[in-house]
């Protein structure tokens, strides 16, 4: 039984009188101990999807099953026990930490709200976790702004970890950080994953990071999953034209692969303008007439590889 199983999830925003179908029928599953990557262009709905899994934004349709229990319509009270199990790490290392609280308070509050009544125990857990993410114990008495970006991200990770979750949704946890610090955070995430047998939903727009970090990858385009495959498979044989373009566009330090100036045409669209057919239509090099009116469904093309394209 997968840890998390999402079926045909829809999230809609009302914006400027229009309904944005930001997440439009996404299904996914995450096994215990698995790291699933979610890539896609800016604004395609990655964050929204990640948040809706944790019921931080309401979904309008679809199921979110944890251990086969559908939590998608639970109220705040019923969600309580699940909050502990599903945690989140945000992109902005500082933004999710209350600037007015010390690190100890931050951790302590999280523990207290999740049923750790003993003060001594909470302190112990906080101390333990802060060391575990590679910070000194003295960090507990300081406030977020006294730390560097990388350290703040460690604190955010510590706060997610202190509740011993089973799944952490990591929303671009390293995008705001420098390469040198990026390596530190990724190494940290990997270490705790091994230690605690965690699952990750790892959201990123950086394909190299996803490739390094994930077991399985899902590629999103304008609210839909267009391809989903094992990470090695995807790089070896990308099937969707968008996935291909994406992988091609990744710059490389390898001078041999220096590009010759052929980039994919067209600009990124917003979810506001959703064509009837395939959403990639306007930028697709192999678009055909059929693509204009028939929206392709996600279908298996190989073992563990699913693609939403008529021509894959």
């Amino acid at each position, binding site marked *: 039984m997968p840890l998390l199983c999402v079926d045909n999830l829809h999230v809609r925003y009302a914006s400027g009188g229009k309904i944005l179908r930001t997440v439009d029928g996404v299904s996914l599953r995450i096994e215990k101990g698995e790291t699933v990557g979610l890539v896609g262009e800016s604004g395609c709905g990655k964050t929204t999807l990640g948040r809706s899994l944790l019921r931080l934004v309401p979904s309008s349709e679809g199921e979110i099953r944890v251990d086969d229990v559908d939590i998608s319509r639970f109220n705040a009270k019923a969600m309580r026990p699940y909050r502990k199990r599903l945690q989140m790490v945000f992109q902005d290392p500082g933004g999710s930490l209350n600037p007015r609280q010390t690190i100890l308070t931050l951790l302590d509050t999280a523990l207290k709200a999740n049923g750790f009544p003993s003060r001594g125990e909470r302190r112990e857990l906080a101390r333990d976790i802060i060391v575990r993410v590679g910070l000194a114990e003295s960090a507990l008495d300081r406030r977020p702004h006294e730390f560097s970006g990388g350290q703040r991200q460690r604190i955010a990770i510590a706060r997610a970890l202190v509740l011993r979750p089973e799944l952490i949704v990591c929303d671009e946890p390293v995008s705001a950080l420098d390469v040198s610090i990026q390596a530190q955070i990724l190494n940290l995430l990997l270490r705790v994953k091994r230690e605690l047998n965690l699952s990750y939903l790892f959201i990123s727009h950086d394909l*190299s990071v996803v490739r390094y970090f994930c077991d399985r990858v899902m590629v999103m385009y304008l609210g839909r999953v267009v391809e989903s495959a094992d990470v090695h498979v995807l790089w070896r044989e990308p099937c969707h034209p968008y996935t291909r373009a994406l992988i091609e566009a990744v710059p490389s*330090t390898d001078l041999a692969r220096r590009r010759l100036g052929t980039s994919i045409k067209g600009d990124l669209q917003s979810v506001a303008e959703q064509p009837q057919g395939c959403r990639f239509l306007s930028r697709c090099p192999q678009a055909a007439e059929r693509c204009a009116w028939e929206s392709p469904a996600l279908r298996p093309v190989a073992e563990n590889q699913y693609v939403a394209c008529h021509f894959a």
Partner: protein
Amino acid sequence: MMTHIDNVLEIRGLRVAFGQTVAVRGLDLSVRSGETLALVGESGSGKSATALALMRLLPQAARIQSGQAFFGDIDLLQAGQAALRKLRGKALSMIFQEPMTSLNPVMPIGEQIAEVLRQHESLSRKQARQRATELLDLVRIAEPDRRYKDYAHNLSGGMRQRVMIAIAVAGNPRLLIADEPTTALDVTIQAQVLDLIDRLRRELSMAVLLITHDLSVVAQWADRVAVMYAGEIVEQASAVKLFHKPGAFHPYTRGLLKSTISDAPGSHYRNAPLYEIPGVAASAVDESGCRFAPRCALALDSCRKTPPLPELISPGHLVSCPVVQPRKHQNSSPSSAVTHGNHDAFALR
């Protein structure tokens, strides 16, 4: 003093401070005409401060403490406002990092292009409009006539950045400074934008100072690379030298390259953890010795006392590190061996 005949820009000893914080400390750099010079370094190393100092657009809190920057026969750092106004947007232009906010939200984009034209060429309103439409076409914006009246919010990030490019190249600049022009954009759009800049560079024969923190971008689009650490250039070389052979010399550059996730097949977490540069970025206040020394595995006692001087280790390859100078190690072992050994040493930590 005049610039070297081949150089569009020559910076000497540029020093910029924000109050107590010294953001740029004695930077020497020259940009040759027609080339793309990449300025790389981690966040806060002073890249933007350098660029803004050249444009003389630093925030009020900042102060240029010393240095010269010759652009032709004009020292940009000394030039008066009138002279600057003549240069900016004409011979010297700049694209900023944030395409979302760099355009005036309440002015049609076409007019924003036309504005710079009317400022520098004495064009009539109509001619300016004509030219602006052509520029929109040049940066590959479809239906330029219609788009002329659009506002920034009608455009996607990539299109906005292209409009910025149109504004920047409107005056046929000799030097285009591009400060992280694509960090806010997607890889596919990033490729489009950088390709466009590259094409315009060739067509308009301008030089580009490309500021970025992404080494792979450098490898893809730059001719030459200058690596900055804590307000100083620590290494300068052609892209070929740095990424190919003989490779980077400065321990910081090497650390950077190493911690960048490789795109070689087989780079996956199950195979090896990532390399980390130990320690945290240097604080901008203390100022003795090599700025990288606290994080450097090779650091000698002397490194902490005397600041290293840049040395030419091969034609066009400058390194500011006395320890890794290849000739110093020539007697004992070939430089490549040294580097390998060091890699292992780093890995052990």
